[in-house]
């Protein structure tokens, strides 16, 4: 078995195969959830609250109902019953939902009614006609809110407090010390595809077109909530227009499902862009204080990372920003502390690189500040404090090619010769030029996943696993793994994914989807091949008969003797002789507890940024980004590069652009569209390069894969902030960096 597995690598894995669904996408044929229009389908539109706290005193349901084309208005009184309370959290990764359970308003943008009509336009206008009247109460929506508490945990069960070594003693004895506070902003999910659902009931059976990052989890949560049997719930989710952590499952889609139940017709619900700023989770603001100390030679002696962040009044998710400080730099004393406030906002949640994105920009800035006070080149300083083992746990890394990342990135970027002092470089037009570096890191997770493989009598293969394509290329990367696992060319493989009827592929999250579902696919293929091999090896008529001891190789639709590849036979022949239509294999994957116990598992990278700053106007442009990343085995370099580019651009967005403008008087977000909620445009990213640094990891999982989906943000945001300092000499600790801060540097 292990021989076969080993030999199955090679033909597809590692190839820069273009997206198999690319043509569908560029020709508009890829059917996203909201592209479905079952016959008789009606349109649902949410009415959302404009106050952030209080109650809905009145809705003009009559006017809304009277509007031509309106079929029904769903409010608390007529909302179909649920089997569980919307605040129930018995299913993992569940958050409280706002499903019209009462008249309370807990945040601005909370759904308060649903209008169902024959057209989108009629439903939209009728929703406006509801003209709610509220009893508003004073709101608290900023980090300065009263009532800070020390949480029990942050993120998903990470300890809120951690002390390792004597931080105070370390700081007291340090030759150089810095203490600085960094602020990161409130950010909202802006995937191109807003949250949506098309729901069709048939008695108690429900079929959904619903973009989700976790088919099985969503199925479980919804079935429990709606009080129906899991097997009666069918979810199609072949393509997501981005998820980034927001599409595990949030409340608003459930309202579309309930609307369909109420009216007895299929219903489509699509959130508007503005409605994304409320009920679908967000990244909360943070205020992070870092205290670092270094010895005379630049060796870190202590790190204390303290975070103040926020959650909603009714549920808890705390951006785990400080976690990064226990994974990156070596120091004898490391402490992490957290505090939080409760705000009249929706509940924060997972947003690409939760905790790490926000924590990394603070840590990388602070490290840079300390390097500067030590008079050291920031890259040398990072190398000086290179963690040979995971700092707090002391575990060896399963693999860590970060040194190579620093070296390759620096060489490619041309880091050598960078002046130590800031404000020393100008371009031909007199623009200030600055260079910065940041370390990228992301833990390698594994989730439970399953797959089913079939080898058919016609020599073709089938792989089934309910994986999720958020745009990252799952249709392609998993097919590559599947093809190799079955010893077939991609053209002989049918790959089925994106449906809840298929084997549970876990979640597309935590940068672990390829490793987890890929591992299951790899195992399923292996089992199918093993079954086929059993048939051949035991059959005296097969040229492979008796090859059991030397083993066989599966390649190109044939099993071959390992010791003599001229002897072999096709899968089709083996099956035909055995009188079978197919053989089947099942596989699963999950974290290897023993390995996780022994090793620390992280992907790493080094990001180098060049920015130019107009010395009088303060306008900034990141003119060059070079990232070098080591994340284990690369299944498809083209797709992996795209993930790094996307992550790095997000990091740029984090440092320079993204920010929700919350009106603290009302709790309303004042920039709920892409004209005003800035993300980078093409002109903001003239040059992004990603280098794939070779790394072999025998421990992390069967395929040696670490995640690539989120790491690109980390490191990049800090590298840009550090480059802005190097260009201007002004250390800006409030993100995103704004013109009024940089123009003061003039």
């Amino acid at each position, binding site marked *: 078995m292990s021989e076969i597995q080993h030999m199955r690598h090679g033909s597809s894995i590692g190839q*820069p195969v273009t997206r198999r669904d690319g043509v569908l996408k560029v020709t508009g044929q890829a059917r996203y959830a909201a592209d479905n229009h079952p016959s008789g389908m009606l349109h649902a539109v949410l009415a959302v609250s*404009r*106050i952030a706290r209080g109650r809905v005193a009145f809705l003009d349901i009559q006017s809304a109902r009277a509007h*031509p084309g309106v079929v029904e208005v769903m409010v608390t009184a007529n909302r179909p019953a649920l089997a569980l309370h919307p605040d129930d959290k018995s299913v993992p990764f569940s958050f409280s939902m706002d499903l019209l359970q009462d008249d309370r308003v807990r945040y601005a943008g909370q759904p308060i009614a649903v209008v169902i009509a024959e057209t989108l*336009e009629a439903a*939209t*206008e009728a929703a*406006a006609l509801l003209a709610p009247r509220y009893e508003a109460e004073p709101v608290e929506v900023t980090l300065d809110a009263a009532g800070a508490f020390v949480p029990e945990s942050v993120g998903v069960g990470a300890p809120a407090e951690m002390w390792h070594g004597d931080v105070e003693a370390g700081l007291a004895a340090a030759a150089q010390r810095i203490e600085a506070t960094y602020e990161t902003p409130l950010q909202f999910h802006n995937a191109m595809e807003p949250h949506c659902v098309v729901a069709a009931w048939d008695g108690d059976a429900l079929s959904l077109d619903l973009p989700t990052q976790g088919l099985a989890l969503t199925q479980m949560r919804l079935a429990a909530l709606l009080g129906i049997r899991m097997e009666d719930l069918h979810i199609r989710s072949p393509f997501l227009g981005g998820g980034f952590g927001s599409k595990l499952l949030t409340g608003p889609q459930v309202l579309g499902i309930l609307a369909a139940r109420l009216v007895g017709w299929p219903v489509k619900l699509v959130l508007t862009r*503005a409605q994304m700023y409320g009920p679908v989770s967000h990244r909360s603001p943070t205020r992070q204080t870092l205290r670092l100390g270094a010895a005379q030679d630049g060796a870190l002696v202590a790190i204390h990372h303290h975070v103040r962040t926020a959650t909603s009044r009714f549920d808890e998710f705390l951006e785990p920003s400080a976690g990064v400080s226990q994974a990156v730099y070596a120091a004898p004393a490391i402490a992490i502390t957290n505090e939080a406030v409760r705000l009249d906002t929706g509940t924060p949640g997972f947003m690409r690189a939760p905790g790490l994105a926000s924590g990394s920009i603070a840590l990388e800035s602070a490290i840079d500040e300390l390097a500067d006070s030590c008079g050291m080149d920031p890259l040398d300083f990072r190398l000086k404090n290179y963690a040979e083992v995971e700092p707090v746990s002391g575990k060896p890394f399963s693999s860590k090619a970060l040194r190579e990342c620093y070296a390759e990135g620096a060489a490619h970027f041309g880091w050598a010769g960078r002046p130590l002092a800031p404000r020393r470089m100008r*371009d*031909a*037009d007199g*623009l200030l030029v600055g260079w910065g570096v940041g370390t990228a890191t992301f833990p390698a997770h594994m989730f439970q996943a399953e797959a089913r493989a079939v080898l058919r009598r016609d020599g073709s293969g089938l792989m089934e696993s309910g994986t999720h394509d958020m745009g990252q290329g799952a249709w392609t990367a998993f097919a590559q793994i599947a093809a190799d696992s079955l010893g077939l060319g991609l053209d002989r493989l049918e790959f089925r994914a994106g449906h809840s009827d298929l084997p549970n592929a876990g979640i597309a999250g935590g940068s672990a989807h390829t490793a987890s579902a890929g591992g299951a696919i790899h195992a399923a293929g292996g089992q199918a091949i093993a079954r086929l091999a059993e048939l051949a090896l035991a059959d005296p008529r097969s040229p492979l008969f008796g090859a059991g001891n030397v083993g066989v190789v599966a390649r190109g639709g044939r099993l071959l003797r390992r010791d003599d590849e001229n002897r072999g036979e096709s899968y089709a022949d083996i099956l035909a002789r055995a009188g079978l239509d197919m053989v089947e294999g099942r596989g699963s994957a999950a974290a290897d507890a023993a390995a996780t116990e022994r090793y620390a598992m992280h992907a790493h990278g080094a990001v180098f940024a060049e920015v*130019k700053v*107009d010395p*009088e*106007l*303060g*306008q900034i*442009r990141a*003119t*060059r980004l070079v990232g070098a990343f080591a994340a284990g085995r690369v299944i498809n*370099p*083209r797709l992996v*590069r795209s993930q790094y*580019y996307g992550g790095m651009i997000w990091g740029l967005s984090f440092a320079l*652009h993204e920010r929700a*403008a919350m*009106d603290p*008087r*009302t709790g*309303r977000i*004042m*920039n709920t569209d892409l*004209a*005003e909620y*800035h993300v*980078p*445009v*093409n*002109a*903001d990213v*003239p*040059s*992004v*390069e*990603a280098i794939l640094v070779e790394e072999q990891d025998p421990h992390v999982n069967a395929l040696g894969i670490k995640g690539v989906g989120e790491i690109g943000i980390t490191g990049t945001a800090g590298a840009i902030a550090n480059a802005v300092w190097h260009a201007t000499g002004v250390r800006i600790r409030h993100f995103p960096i*704004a*013109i*009024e801060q940089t*123009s*003061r540097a*003039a």
Partner: protein
Amino acid sequence: MNRFEYVRPRSVAEAVAAAAIPGSAYLAAGTNLLDLMKIGVARPERLIDLNHLPDLDIIEQLPDGTVRIGAQVRNADLAHDPDFRQRFPVVAEALLSGASAQLRNMATVGGNLLQRTRCAWFQDTASACNRRAPGSGCDARGGENRMHAVLGWSEHCIATHPSDFCVPLVALDAVVEIEGPAGRREIPLADFHLLPGDTPERESVLAPGDLVVALRLPAEAAGFAAHARYAKLRERTSYAFAVVSAAAALRIADGRITEARLALGGVAAKPWRARAAEAALAGATPDAAAFRRAAEAALAEARPSGDNGFKIELARRIAIRALTLAAAGTPDRLPALPASAFASSSTPRPRGLHV
């Protein structure tokens, strides 16, 4: 969006007659109006579609050298018109620094003049806004108002006019031709937009039914072509409204400025002509000291309307930048990033962006 009647007039006269009925609004490309209808800020009962009117999309040169631009000329068509861009490069540069290529392909000259403020509270029907709902108050005051006015504002409204296009136009003495129920009239662009005073709901001199039919730039405005630039400070490299902007146009002879034009954007409820600065520049040598003096004069009356005091110094600096660029001479070709601080900085060629 409310239900509305849709009217497609065949002539200007028909359009004006239709629009004179209360509750009507002209529809040009709709890149601003339709957005406002979707968020409930504009709720017209009747849309008068200008897109099928004859002759409104023509750029013509009159015998005296005046250029006349029909109200329905698309922003991109005007900016890329070879004659126009040669004679009025600063206008082309301002146009191309605005919005995105897709929007410019649609947006019209008339619509650009009459686009509404981007003030967030104006766009939020749950907020108090004197401009949208007279007498309701102004929630921008006391809010985050870094994009708001530092010149010509009143306690009733501190909004800015967001157009880039209008800034060089007002500097070059553009004239607006208006056809209304009372006949045809024309008015200098400088007098077209109104400062808020205590009637912020009145944004321009247009009366109900009034249609902008064309814009005119006088022949002499082309006399600045050799020294005319637009500079725009924004928070992204492209596709963002101006934090502050400036259009500068100079005539230089024998090392002296014989005539100067300067206007500012992003600072007031109208494109802001800086006549005091122009007077200060007349006869001066085009150098840093003169530009600084002019910028001081341009902003002499500025005061913050909230937490936007930083804009006053930035407005001075953008004025200096535009004047400096103008003095250096209009480039033969407009930069790939028009009006940008990074306009001349060479764009690195990405390696490895496409595998």
